[in-house]
């Protein structure tokens, strides 16, 4: 009973945060490109992840559905990183809210499938995401022409710089998880063969 109440409280906090980021604070987040792309978008994704943590059991998902969900999540990132989508989202707050819901759903789904999907696919997915973030970072940093009409070239370049850092950090973290996973696998194999 106590745990249920705690979950309900956390869920309420998530809903309030979603509302605050999506409604009263939306104008502030849409004022500059780094705020919109580096704060608002990931904030929604992390809210989705936190919401997923409240559930102790997820429906069992086989590998093919897991891959399909990862494709949908990846496509969501690609879609909301397109300059056309960014402009449309900044100009139309309701379109921006579609992005918010999509990111919350993406965060929720990634947590939901993470326990079900095999290690190699997870690593491949995170490497693809880091490659995508790095590619977008390079594009935004190096392009000397305005890609989004809602922002300035300076903001575009700044966003590119931080995306480069984010992509690099994500790449390193994935590398660490990969080699850590490999090491624990070989340890397990040794234990099994010793037995």
């Amino acid at each position, binding site marked *: 009973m106590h745990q249920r109440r705690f979950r309900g409280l956390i869920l309420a906090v998530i809903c309030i945060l979603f509302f605050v980021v999506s409604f009263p604070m939306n104008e502030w987040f849409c004022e500059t490109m780094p705020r919109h792309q580096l704060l608002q978008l990931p904030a929604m994704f992390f809210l989705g992840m936190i919401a997923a943590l409240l559930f102790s059991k997820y429906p069992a998902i086989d590998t*093919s559905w897991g891959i399909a969900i990862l494709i949908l999540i990846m496509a969501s990132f690609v879609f909301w990183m397109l300059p056309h989508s960014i402009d449309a989202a900044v*100009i139309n707050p309701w379109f921006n809210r579609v992005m918010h819901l999509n990111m919350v759903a993406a965060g929720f789904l990634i947590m939901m499938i993470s326990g079900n999907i095999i290690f190699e696919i997870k690593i491949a997915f995170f490497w693809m995401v880091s490659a995508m973030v790095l590619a977008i970072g390079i594009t935004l940093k190096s392009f000397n*022409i305005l890609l989004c009409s809602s922002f300035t070239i300076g903001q575009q370049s700044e966003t590119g710089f931080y995306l480069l850092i984010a992509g690099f950090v994500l790449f390193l973290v994935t590398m660490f998880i990969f080699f850590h996973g490999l090491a624990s696998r070989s340890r397990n194999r040794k234990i099994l063969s010793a037995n």
Partner: protein
Amino acid sequence: MKKILIPVVALAICLLVIWKWTYGFTAFTIFSYTLKEAGTNPRVFPDIAMIDQDSNVFHIRDKHKYVLINFVYLNCPYVCHKVNNQLEQIYHLADPSLVPSQLQFITMSFDLKNDDVQKIRKYRSYFGKDIEGWTFTLPFQTRETDFANFLNKIGVWKYMVPSTGIINHSIYLFLVSPDQKIVSVFDPARQTNEQIIQKIESCIKEDSGD
């Protein structure tokens, strides 16, 4: 088989959505999307009354020659002036037998609220005196909504950033034929001056049967 099909269908749906959203993976920015949405060339250049730096009111259709038209925002902090500097180079590189007898350059201001004839006359003076075939204009007695419709029809995106008041817009150059059709669109950020001139001259020469 079914197991492979699920991710393949998911990928196909995602690609379809992005394909539709980007006009077949060709328009990734709102500038290129607006241009694609306006239609393929050749297409009609909508009529609009303009007033030039000497207070003469005219229509492009009355010019009876090719017109290379671009748009400028005089308070632009950076890009517009760069584009107009490039246009100045194109003007001087173009075949003198074509400009201004067969080809006219027109630069039109976006800013209906702040720009006037004096401002565009002053702005034109920055480009020297030997630019007889280059006219700087403003839309004449045009309401904001009509001007927005005009821009939409030709495929120019214009957006005023609420926090700064700066107008961000497409920087395309439109080549309009004497029968008032957009025959070619150039992107000065991606095309060189030589490529632009070559295309303009080939259009004019093709038309005159050379």
